[in-house]
């Protein structure tokens, strides 16, 4: 017994020591250069920038003075690759569109000069023009909770995560009872970030109360919304936060195994998550009798294979089981009978990333952020015709206008804003005159869109709403699993009508037909994909019916001529 107590204490001490050492290590450098190493920035020479800086630091014998940290997404993807220079006692400087050449200049003309001249150093103008103001609204107006570490730590280093308080929430949770943990999450008001918005604490409570020799907790990382990459940003930038969130959830509902279901199109996210799991095992944070608490838990990674419908929880379960990803009717809900018939709770990547922070800051403090019924923050992938496109995190209840105009810097190329689309293929468009609307689950629903997983696409006056509706419907028709007929047949018929309208061959009664088919699909489809797939059509019809009618009139005019 005594021996075990000693071993347990040693394990905990090892974690504290690793965190301490990493903090000391960071402090020992006079300068830190952070480089975005996410998929997006890597694709535009970010990888080469990291290599160039590494070589440069070596050749100038600065390896003990300058630390290079490859990080996750810094947010402003449209201006990437981003590089952030932090010198002791100075304000950080962020560079945009860095290439290997500029990187070398930054090291020679900024870092080395500043180290040499200390107080009197002024950034030369030719470098200044490549920087972004640190107080620009894009950075200043965000509230980072889920993305707290993303863009700051090296996602491949568990020590980095530990040094920023990582796994402390999990350790705290181990001293609580499962129901205490669930109460805390309930109190925080956290709702599922995958789009449904189901209260997370309640889901965990159901799973905790289900009986079973085995129980599962599943992370839904099958980010199917085309044009959104919140989950990949989190998994690439801070995989340990997602893992810790899952571990806390597993403890709260006494789950024995965790499953990460990740899109196969995100190889970098899969690689970093797999590494994170390996490192966590090394520190005995996974396995049997974790940190001497008597709690056993392990997790595995499974890949999707390019099916949007697998984001639906029962289809996701079928996919892990090695079947076609088709949904099944609920109840029974997965928390009663899920993966292989065992109780399973399915949570989104971003939901998990919030958990460790809620435990750390306390449920009350988290509850204070956000709007009436939507608590905390939400990560959005702000894309399309916007100046500062990227990954942003804002408190719930911020208006669309603030997100697009202030954080996003407005529409690119001086064009006029027409609408914002949220919720991807299951959501709808919101025209400019409604942009004072606070972004939260219920308000977005009221105007015919949904929160969704976090895609936010900005459209300008040149974008045709009929084409957008056709694009989304084409997507859902292709992704429909075909199991239930309202979705399979209804979607195809709607798409045919839309194609007809788009070619200028629409008839007046087509609008009615679209509405009737939409109604049938919403009411009779088996799963969320079918029920929501008419949304893009309905909302563009609601706000931009004249664009549909314009296409019709062309046809009518033609007929008159004939």
């Amino acid at each position, binding site marked *: 017994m005594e021996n075990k107590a000693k071993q347990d204490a040693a394990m905990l001490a090892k974690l504290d020591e690793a965190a301490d050492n990493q903090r000391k290590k960071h402090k020992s450098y006079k300068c830190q250069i952070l480089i975005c190493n996410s*998929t*997006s920035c*890597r*694709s*535009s020479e970010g990888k080469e920038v990291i290599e160039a800086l590494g070589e440069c630091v070596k050749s100038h014998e600065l390896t003990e003075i300058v630390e290079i940290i490859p990080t996750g997404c810094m947010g*402003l*993807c*449209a*201006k*990437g690759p981003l590089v952030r220079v932090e010198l002791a006692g100075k304000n950080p400087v962020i560079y945009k569109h860095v290439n290997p050449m500029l990187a070398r200049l930054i090291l020679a003309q900024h870092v080395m000069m500043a180290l040499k001249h200390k107080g009197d150093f002024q950034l030369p103008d030719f470098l200044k023009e490549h920087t972004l103001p640190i107080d620009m609204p894009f950075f200043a107006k965000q509230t980072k909770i889920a993305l707290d570490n993303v863009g700051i730590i090296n996602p491949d280093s568990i020590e980095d995560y530990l040094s920023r308080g990582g796994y402390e929430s999990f350790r705290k949770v181990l001293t609580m009872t499962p129901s205490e943990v669930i109460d805390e999450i309930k109190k925080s008001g956290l709702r599922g970030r995958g789009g449904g918005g189901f209260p997370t604490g309640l889901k965990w409570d159901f799973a905790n109360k289900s009986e079973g020799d085995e129980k599962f907790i599943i992370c839904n990382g099958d980010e*199917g*919304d*085309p*044009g*959104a*990459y919140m989950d*990949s*940003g989190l998994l690439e930038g801070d995989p340990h936060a997602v893992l810790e969130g899952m571990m806390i959830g597993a403890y709260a509902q006494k789950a024995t195994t965790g*499953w990460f279901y990740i899109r*196969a*199109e*995100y190889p970098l996210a899969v690689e970093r998550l797999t590494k994170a799991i390996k490192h966590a095992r090394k520190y005995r944070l996974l396995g049997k009798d974790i940190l001497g608490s008597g709690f056993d838990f392990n997790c*595995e990674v*499974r*890949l*999707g*294979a*390019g*099916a*949007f419908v697998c984001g639906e929880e029962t289809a996701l379960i079928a*996919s*892990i*089981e*090695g*079947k*076609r*990803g088709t949904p099944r009717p609920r109840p029974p809900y997965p928390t009663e009978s899920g*993966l*292989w018939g065992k109780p399973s709770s399915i949570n989104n990547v971003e939901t998990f990333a919030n958990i460790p922070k809620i435990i750390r800051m306390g449920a009350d403090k988290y509850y204070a952020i956000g709007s009436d019924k939507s608590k905390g923050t939400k990560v959005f*992938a702000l*894309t*399309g*015709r916007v100046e500062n*496109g*990227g990954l942003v995190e804002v408190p719930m209840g911020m208006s669309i206008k603030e997100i697009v105009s202030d954080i996003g810097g407005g529409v690119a190329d001086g064009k006029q804003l027409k609408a914002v*689309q949220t919720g*991807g293929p299951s959501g709808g468009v919101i025209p400019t005159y409604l942009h004072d609307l606070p972004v939260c689950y219920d308000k977005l629903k009221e105007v015919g869109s949904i929160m969704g997983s976090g*895609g936010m*696409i900005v*459209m300008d006056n040149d*974008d045709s709403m009929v084409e*957008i509706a056709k*694009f*989304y419907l084409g*997507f859902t028709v292709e992704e429909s*699993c075909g199991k239930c007929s309202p979705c399979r047949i209804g979607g195809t018929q709607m798409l045919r009508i839309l194609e007809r309208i788009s070619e200028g061959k629409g008839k007046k009664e087509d609008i009615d037909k679209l509405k009737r088919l939409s109604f049938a699909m919403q009411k009779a489809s088996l799963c969320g994909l079918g029920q929501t797939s008419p949304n893009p059509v309905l909302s563009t019809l609601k706000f931009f019916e004249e664009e549909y009618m314009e296409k019709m009139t062309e046809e009518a005019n033609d007929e008159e001529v004939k």
Partner: protein
Amino acid sequence: MLGQEKKSGCCYDSQNLEKTPSKKKVFSKTELAIKKWKKKRGSLIMALHEIQDLKGFLPWEDAVEVAEGMNVPLARVYEVLTFYNYFKLEAPGDIIISVCYGTACYLKGGKDVLDEFSEKLGIADGESTEDKMFHLQTVRCVGCCGLAPVVVINGKTYGKVRPSDVRGMIEEWQEKHAAKNSVDGASDGE
């Protein structure tokens, strides 16, 4: 059984796999993938992924082997292969051009880029050229929406692509392909 193993010594002999765990036996890549995943739960799709990663597509024989090796009905393997977009049942061209068709890329002209590739190469989305050099496909969001429209060619990402860039991109890869072939040819000669 033993005699048979000696005689055949064939790495594709899947029946021997379960019965003779001889260390000397050389396993094929497919067999290794099956061996790795068969004992784990929820692993059919993972095994198929691994084989496709190695071979570029999933040959029919391998699907049969997976069914036998993992004790899954062949019909199940087939339905999985045909249901999920990610799996290819035929060998694609050497150079795989993936045009991103996520919303951001579509909005910023992804379709024009796709049409341009399609016209220049004379193939439609999902097809390969007759000489099996190029394969054209669309993908749903590669997570680089800030760089829209995006094209990925054999792992290399191109951002902010305009239709006028397409010709240069095709030529770049034709050259790479020719250079690679000549190197391969030279080493074959030696």
